[in-house]
């Protein structure tokens, strides 16, 4: 049953890589929203607006 270690490693690796990937995706969403908010704030602060 020693060769089953590869399957065990694969299952844990896929799980944690997918979760890490999702966290990165969420981080990108937050960054996009921050950029949008900054743009809106700059628009509000600019002269003549």
């Amino acid at each position: 049953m020693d060769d089953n270690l590869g399957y065990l490693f694969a299952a844990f690796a896929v799980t944690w890589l997918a979760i890490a990937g999702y966290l990165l995706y969420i981080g990108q969403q937050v960054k996009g929203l921050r950029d949008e908010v900054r743009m809106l704030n700059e628009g509000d602060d600019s002269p003549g607006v």
Partner: protein
Amino acid sequence: MMQRKPANRSDMLVTGLGVLAVVVLTLGIFMAFVYAPTDRDQGDAQRIFYVHVPMAWLAYLAMGVVFIGSVGYMWKRSARMDRLARSSAELGFLFTTLVLITGSIWGRPIWNAWWQWEARLTTTLILWFIFIGYFMVRAYAGDAERGARYAAVLGIIGAIDVPIIHQSVKWWRTLHPEPIVLDTAGPNLPDSMLVTLLVCLAGFTLLYAFLMVLKMQIEWARDVLAERELTALLAPEGNQAERRTVATVSHKVSGAAED
């Protein structure tokens, strides 16, 4: 330059859940590899159980929350309930994908097959397609309100699949084993395995809660910004209320990003 704002309750909740999830999951992984005994029949492949079962639980939980959010939206037309449902649907898709992949990896050494068209696997695959359909109806409905309504109907109907998945091993002859924790006669596994599984279940449930709170904040900020842009289009001069909205979103988003 963006200044650091004092943390509000929501930011503290995200941070607290995140830290707690990391601590409990670290303990769970340690127990899965060190504390839990090696299965006599399956060897080390059986340890996949400690991620596969929590993924299945989170897929059920996520669909349950989609159901609650969908019913709430259809009943009250509440944007908050719609955000709850769509945030949980995204996580449900992630965890259903993972339960299918980890199950397939586990099945290869034990059943000598990556996939079998048997009841448990097929009904879980149907759940995965329900989540995909949930996002497709939103994307192709035309307008956001109609998309939310169609998705809510799918969220309510799709939830019926969860008890079918759970009961499938009892209703049909399957390769997949029957439940050993939620067995009517009580848990049918050694205490050390049961405790390890419970710790992993707690850790992954905390991770789900952490991701849900974070995702709800993002969806809320998106909704407010979309509404603000619409208001700005209708009244280009802007007003104090709009500036307050941007300031509130700015605080929330910067808090979420910095934590």
